[in-house]
């Protein structure tokens, strides 16, 4: 039998509780700091504006392109013009702010005409225009979706388990979400709608992970062999028992995501990146954040296994 994690003894995860909580608190605060200090590099889907994707016949020079587009003096807002390479030196993405006195069709035509001066064979592969009002709405919808997911999961876990489990799972997984956002803010990667989809998918996915551990904890509470053990030992045993599953499952999901990251091209890059961060931190947080939180909230055996109530005899 090929085995990765067949451990004779349980790993005392809970005794590292203080250390791991400190580490996650530090990363969390760091992520929040970058989120506020640098902010997210929102895609035009949120901010409004125009994006062009063009392909040159030879390697292009983004700096020179940027200068020539700035020279068009489209809106006066030069700092908002972005030119960057997309995967290969021939593919370039140009991002322009909303220009009030020009339709998007005319704007893209003007820019294309300018680019054709340096390379006659430049090909426009994608033009995207988003009006400013749509973006705000997307943001509120995204936040509503986030809130709805949290509430839905809290209710479900509250019913299936207990409120302590529900709240721990949500805190642990929101911690993942904030870290993904923090990383995106730190590297100033573009935060697009597909990245938002990935972030919300991660939320559902990491809760998944916490649920598996919680399931084991509940089972352990009911097991006869675990009766004399302390809460810490029960949780340690649950995490150790599910560990190989955790690694294998996340490993196979990550393999899929990695394939998207490597072969999916620029269109799937942000999506795959957000999932990768989410999966890595998902393992960490559900094992080392959610479970210590359970203890913090004062989980006891009685909160899971209802004591058998002694029936009162009716007095005749």
């Amino acid at each position: 039998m090929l085995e990765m994690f067949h451990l004779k003894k349980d790993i005392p995860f809970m005794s590292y509780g203080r250390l791991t909580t400190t580490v996650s608190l530090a990363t969390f605060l760091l992520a929040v700091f970058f989120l506020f200090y640098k902010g997210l590099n929102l895609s035009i889907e949120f901010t409004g504006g125009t994006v062009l994707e063009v392909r040159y016949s030879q390697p292009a020079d983004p700096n020179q392109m940027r200068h020539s587009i700035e020279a068009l003096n489209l809106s006066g807002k030069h700092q908002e013009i972005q030119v960057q390479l997309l995967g290969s030196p021939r593919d370039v993405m140009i991002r322009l702010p909303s220009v009030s006195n020009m339709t998007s069709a005319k704007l893209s035509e003007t820019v294309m005409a300018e680019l054709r001066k340096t390379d006659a064979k430049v090909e426009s592969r994608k033009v995207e225009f988003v009006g400013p009002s749509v973006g705000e709405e997307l943001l509120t919808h995204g936040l509503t979706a986030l809130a709805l997911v949290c509430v839905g999961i809290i209710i479900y876990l509250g019913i299936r388990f207990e409120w302590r489990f529900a709240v721990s799972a949500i805190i642990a997984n929101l911690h993942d979400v904030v870290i993904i956002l923090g990383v995106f803010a730190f590297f100033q990667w573009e935060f697009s709608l597909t990245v938002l989809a990935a972030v919300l998918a991660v939320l559902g996915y990491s809760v998944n992970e916490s649920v598996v551990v919680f399931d084991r904890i509940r089972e352990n509470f009911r097991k006869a062999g675990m009766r004399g053990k302390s809460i810490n030992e029960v949780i340690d045993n649950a995490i150790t028992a599910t560990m190989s599953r955790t690694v294998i499952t996340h490993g196979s999901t990550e393999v899929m995501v990695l394939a998207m990251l490597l072969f999916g091209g620029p269109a799937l890059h942000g999506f795959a990146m957000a999932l990768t961060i989410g999966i890595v931190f998902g393992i960490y947080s559900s094992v080392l954040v959610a479970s210590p939180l359970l203890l913090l909230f004062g989980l006891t055996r009685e909160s899971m296994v209802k004591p058998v109530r002694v029936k009162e005899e009716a007095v005749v």
Partner: protein
Amino acid sequence: MNRYPLWKNLIILFALVAGLIYALPNRYGETPAVQVSGTRSSVKVDTAVMDRVEKLLQAANIQPEGAFLENNSLKVKFAGTEAQLKAKTAIQEALGDNYVVALNLQPNTPGWLAKVGAKPMALGLDLRGGVHFLMQVDTRAAVDKAYERVAGDVRRELKDKKIRAGSIKRLVSGVEIQLRDEATMAESRKAIERSLPTVQIAQQSAEGNYRLMLTLTDEEQRRVQSDAVKQNIATLHNRVNELGTTEPVIQQQGADRIVVQLPGVQDTARAKDIIGRTATLEVRMVEEDAAKLSEALAGKVPAGYELLEELDPRGNRPILLKTDVELTGENINGAQPSFDEQNQPSVEITLDSAGANIFRQLTAENIGKRMAMVLVEKNKGQVVTAPVIRGEIGGGRVQITGSMTTADATDTALLLRAGSLAAPMEVVEERTIGPSLGKENIEKGFNSMFYGFGAVVLFMVIYYRMFGVTASLALGANLVFLIALLSVWSTTLTLPGIAAIALTLGMAIDSNVLINERIREEVRAGVPPQTAIKAGYEHAWATILDSNITTFIAGVALFIFGSGAVRGFAVVHCLGIITSMFSAVVVSRALVNLIYGYRRKVTSLAV
């Protein structure tokens, strides 16, 4: 104990076969084709047209691969794009202007598959190239317009009833009527109540000040707004038909938005031009008073008037119009380019009965005066023509002549016919994807899916041996079910959709990992193999259910609040969770049962 009853095995087999059949059409590619449809719904495309086209192609020496009629349109397949292009030109020339001839791609689904309703997934714009627009309908303008109509109706009604009214004013949200005394007020109130049941009337009678305030009921306002969106959708349909694209998507999104998607459109500039054009026609009276005109030219336009330009090939002329709108494009039934008695290009407009009545009354009362046909595009009015009214025009047929070329006449007619928008629209989102990018997106999306799938299968087989093989087969079945479901429900596949398929597959293996790990645990604990299989599946089930439901909750939230890309992702994600539960638990168990359940003695499990 590890045997499924026969019926259960049969159901699984049936599901697998059905899944394969309905997923199969996606294996076949697409053939270039030409689609012929009528420009109007009254133009029938039937076997006679088909016959004509076939003879015509024979004469032009182009060999079609097949032709069939579907939804009042004819589709002819060709072997290559060259034949397709040649055929398009030939058919268009022969059939003339009553038919739209468009290039398109037809799926190569074999006949027997098509008979059972199997069809390939439609590809989204990001995968095949095309144009996407999101338009915002200005519903407040629709209500505004409704008030204008109310003001006009009241004016006519009071005139008909010979009630002397003071000024009839259009306010921001209502119409105000000034009246002389109590009696006329009561009289006009009765008249309005009878003829306009949808307005609410409030009356004010102070000393020597008698007023009626008309407002639309809330219900009526909502109706006007939703009607405006619906009419705009209909209008967009007409315009898109004029464009000759096939399989366009025109849908309402939210309360006041419309999505237009034109897949495979190559000439994006023209598409944008026609879609983006928003024209409404207004008939208004011209003010001939020279003093007022010169005042307006000096920059002081008198209240109740508007200075516009009259189109003229020798240079546009300024013209002063009253702001009251007598008639709008909503009353237009049709518009055709034609020629007048002097053989000059003109546009012939047919009005509906209400429009015809208004027009007859208007012309009868204003003989000798000029009226203006104003084409309003993007909130900017332009006077197409301002003819002098020579006599009463009844019957609802109006001919507009002016200085226009034949092309102008055709264009104006098209705009009027397709252009009667109930409210102006604004493009709030626009996306153009070139066909080469689409092709690359498909390739990259599927490549990453297959490499990922291969890697997962390889790992599972090495790590779990026989149980890895069953898990991989179950994962394959999951892919088949998912694609079959997406095809049957004619979901549009987008790049985020492909990403969701890949992600779902990666996550679906979780269930089998859970099961296999449980079986291993049981084996380690010294449980006999058959019992271990049973216990493993049973113990894992609760966990699988819980974890899938939480993921599902996230998927549903994404579906409800997501738009566009996110929604495509969510649909696939949710469906994938459902199919994965079936395949990971039921299909894999059936396979394990078939392998181990019928052996007399199992000493060890290859897990």
